[in-house]
């Protein structure tokens, strides 16, 4: 099932991704990790889910007109991901950067399957993706994330709340049921893909310290000479 295409021999950079349900705190954590790696002198490249300039307009249109089905929702997000893989992620890794991704293929695996798309099909769809070196999964109980998201958020968007699934007419109720399904998918992927589980109920500082330690150990492992391998301001990983 885990059928990632591996990069050729000259792969130099590192790919680190964060995952978790909405309100798990992953974006905060990757932001802090980004700042730290930069201050350490590494070349860092950041890529965010659903942000391809070529594809964004189409996704937006589909969401606005509510014309996306589970299949086209899945495909348009894969298109976005393919564009970022071809234009951003692969070149940056080959150039030796540390690539940070806020959400990765696991987001699609969790959300699309929660929408009823066959598991095997969506995993095949993303077969071209680069396998991350480290994939962090920020795990929080559903009540915690719901509290964070629903508190102070005026309105949930249609697809975000999973309204297309017809689980409930009430957006908040629908959101809860949908997030619950997504979370179950994430949990089932921990072993399948070797996700590193971070307890997202602890303080931001505690989580960040753990993440930094894991990243640090990984980088030191990849760099036999430690920081001596630094080239200018950009760390070249070989």
């Amino acid at each position, binding site marked *: 099932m885990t059928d990632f295409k591996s990069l050729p021999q000259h792969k130099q950079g590192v790919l680190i991704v964060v995952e978790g349900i909405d309100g798990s705190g992953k974006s905060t954590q990757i932001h802090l990790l980004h700042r730290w790696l930069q201050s350490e002198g590494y070349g860092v490249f950041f890529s965010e889910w659903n942000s391809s300039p070529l594809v964004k307009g189409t996704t937006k249109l589909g969401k606005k007109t509510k014309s996306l089905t589970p*299949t086209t929702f899945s495909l348009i997000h894969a298109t976005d991901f393919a564009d970022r893989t071809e234009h951003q992620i692969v070149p940056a890794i080959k150039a030796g950067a540390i690539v940070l991704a806020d959400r990765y293929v696991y987001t699609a695996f969790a959300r699309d399957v929660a929408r009823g798309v066959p598991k095997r099909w969506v995993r095949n769809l993303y077969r071209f993706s680069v396998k991350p070196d480290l994939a962090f999964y920020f795990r929080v109980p559903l009540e915690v994330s719901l509290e964070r998201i629903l508190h102070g958020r005026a309105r949930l968007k249609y697809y975000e709340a999973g309204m297309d699934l017809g689980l409930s007419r009430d957006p908040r109720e629908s959101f809860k049921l949908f997030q619950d399904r997504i979370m179950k998918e994430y949990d089932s992927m921990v072993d399948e893909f070797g996700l590193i589980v971070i307890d997202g109920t602890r303080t931001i500082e505690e989580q960040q310290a753990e993440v930094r330690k894991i990243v640090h150990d990984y980088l030191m492992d990849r760099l036999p000479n430690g920081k001596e391998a630094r080239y200018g301001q950009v760390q070249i990983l070989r």
Partner: protein
Amino acid sequence: MAKFKYYGEGLTGVDLDSLVGKLIVLEGPDSVGRSTQVALLRDWLESMGHAVAATGLRRSELTQEGLDQAKTGHTLGRRTMSLFYATDFADRLENNIVPALRAGYHVLSDRYFYSISARDIVRSADPEWLKEVYGFALVPDLVLYLRVEVEHLVPRALYGKGFNYWESGMDLALGDNFFDSFVIYQSRVIRELDKMAEHYGFIVIDASRDPNSIFEDLKKAIEPILTPTVEAIT
């Protein structure tokens, strides 16, 4: 039992039992004359009392604008292009073809995922990957493949709308001019379609002849799958 089947795992949330129309696909390379035949077939079917819905590639409301923009800039990576077209096809399938089949229409599809895949394979996509991706597609009642050799396409393209960047495969750098590139590229697409004709069981129609002879052959191929219409009231 449902009349339709999927090639693979199928579409999420579509009840196959509800699809009662007929799905007839016309395949073939660029400029082979598919749209002429679609128009003739539509008239013919309607004259017999069948409701017809015609649909073509890259007509999806969802992706038309985005795809046009991306292709104008020539900045689309190959994998991205594959998936963009797959999205487009899925949107057309779910929002045009499926509703028409549900309403009992005879759907004439000007191309299907076969030519999209053929173009992707010529651009070095993995055929097995594509086959699985397009596992959401319905198996048509009939696939009519308008087949020609590339020599026949050249004048049609030239005196038609002229050689086009993508239809000449210029992104592949196969030749230093549109003519050479067109010949190499379209030959490769035809080769892939030939393979699919065998694999998927297309009905091959010799499209090097005049439009009327082609039309006659198409009618002969379609007739057996038509449901009898009400006797003419006279």
